[in-house]
């Protein structure tokens, strides 16, 4: 594992956790860095909805197909087993694994053959899981599991940023707010994709880049764009293809809409 990249990632993540950071943007960065650091093909975060199902809140790619694959696991898959047991669950060769035939078939079709799920734990409660996909068969080494678990723990802490951690109420409030923000972002992705004739993954990147350029939270910009109170411009200089993001600066005050 690349030690420099590891330390740079933790510095970036803690830098991003300033007072007014956007949880979806933060978790997107976390899943993207997980892919680079842990040398996997894709990463996703699923949170447990008190309605009784797991829901995708962030993924290393916003491509619809990958999001669907993560979401499939609300019915069956390593994430669901990990969430229920509170322990890491791995499959080193999905095609030969009898546990989740429907999920394994869909993952294979998308080009993924090994998977690991790591629990997001808060005291005695499991609130979700970090899910890693790889395009080759074989075991995940222990270092991947340890660093992956550390990233899952950072994701858990980030959900509790706002108020005191002692209240269970707070966690449930944050969780539902994050899940609804996720829906707002999907709506904004659709609107922007349709307006500019681009795909939803490009639309996400564009939204995120513009939120950063305007020093605005991703969820706030997405909501304002969907409600029609703030407009979006097309990609400038190919910025929609940027894969590495800058660290967000602390917000100094509200900005007027352009």
């Amino acid at each position, binding site marked *: 594992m690349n030690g420099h990249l590891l330390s740079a990632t933790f510095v970036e993540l803690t830098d991003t956790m300033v007072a007014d950071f956007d949880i979806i943007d933060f978790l997107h960065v976390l899943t993207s860095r997980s892919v680079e650091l842990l040398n996997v093909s894709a990463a996703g975060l699923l949170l447990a*909805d*008190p*309605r*009784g*199902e797991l*829901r*995708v809140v962030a993924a290393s790619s916003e491509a*619809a197909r990958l*999001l*669907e694959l993560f*979401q499939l696991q609300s019915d069956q898959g390593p994430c669901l087993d990990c969430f229920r047991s509170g322990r890491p669950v791995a499959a080193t060769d999905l095609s030969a694994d009898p546990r989740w035939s429907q999920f394994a078939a869909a993952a294979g079709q998308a080009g993924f053959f090994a998977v690991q799920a790591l629990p997001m734990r808060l005291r005695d409660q499991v609130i979700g899981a970090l899910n890693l996909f790889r395009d080759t068969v074989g075991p995940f080494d222990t270092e991947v599991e340890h660093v992956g678990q550390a990233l899952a723990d950072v994701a858990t802490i980030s959900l509790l940023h706002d*108020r*005191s951690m002692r*209240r*269970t*109420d707070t966690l*449930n*409030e*944050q*969780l*539902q*707010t*994050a899940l*609804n*923000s996720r*829906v*707002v*972002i*999907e*709506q*904004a*992705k*659709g*609107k*922007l*994709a*349709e*307006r500019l004739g681009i795909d*939803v993954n490009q639309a996400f990147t564009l939204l995120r880049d513009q939120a950063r350029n305007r020093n605005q939270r991703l969820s706030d910009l*997405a*909501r304002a764009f*969907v*409600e*029609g109170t703030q407009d979006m411009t097309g990609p400038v200089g190919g910025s929609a293809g940027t894969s590495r993001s800058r660290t967000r600066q602390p917000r100094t005050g509200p900005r007027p809409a352009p």
Partner: protein
Amino acid sequence: MWGLVAEQAAVRGGRVSAADVCAAVVPGAAVTGAWLSAAFDGQAGHLMQVTDEVGRRLADLQLTFGEGPLLDASASGGPVLASDLADGDSGARWPAFAPAACRAGAAAVFAFPLVVGAIRAGVLGLYRDRPGPLSDFQLGDALVFADTATMLLLDAQDRAAAGAGPGDGPGGQPAGLASRRAEIDQATGMLTEQLGVSITNAFVRLRAYAYVNDLQLSDVAGDIVARRLRLVPDPDLSLGDEA
């Protein structure tokens, strides 16, 4: 759970509406009372239903003071769970509302925004006359009741505006309750551009299209996102902000 809501409508002798959710959630989530405010044109605060006088008083207090859990829930898009209005947290959050609510007979207030992303249909408020958090089970139930109320309010708004709604899904349930797929939300966003309508009306049109053509909502959404299907603005259907 749908059975509990439909039962209330049968007792009332009318078509199932969001008001029935308000009555059904009280035993369902083991609370003392509930109230429901509908949002119109993005403005919250139209009190639609209350189960008792304390509920009515709590709704009034928030309007009077301009602060309270339901207003916060509306603003954040997430629930606000105040399991003890007499504790320091609540007092700091709502210095005027919290003590007044206690005097009115409420010890805990739980507020659920009736939202689908940026679509705002209203807010559901629950209160208890004794402090104490909702259990995980009660919270899950309350969220499902809130989802049901959201869909019923959107149906009702559409019927009021256009005289005909997307109607009911299987078993009389509002269409679109069970599906929580990213493609449905993306397709709704795409329709705001295709049809030139608000996000609320885009969602109504998406559900109406699925219902009229007897298709699954997620299949229609998938076709729109894959750009195999486009909807066209309907000049005959006067829908709120299109008029």
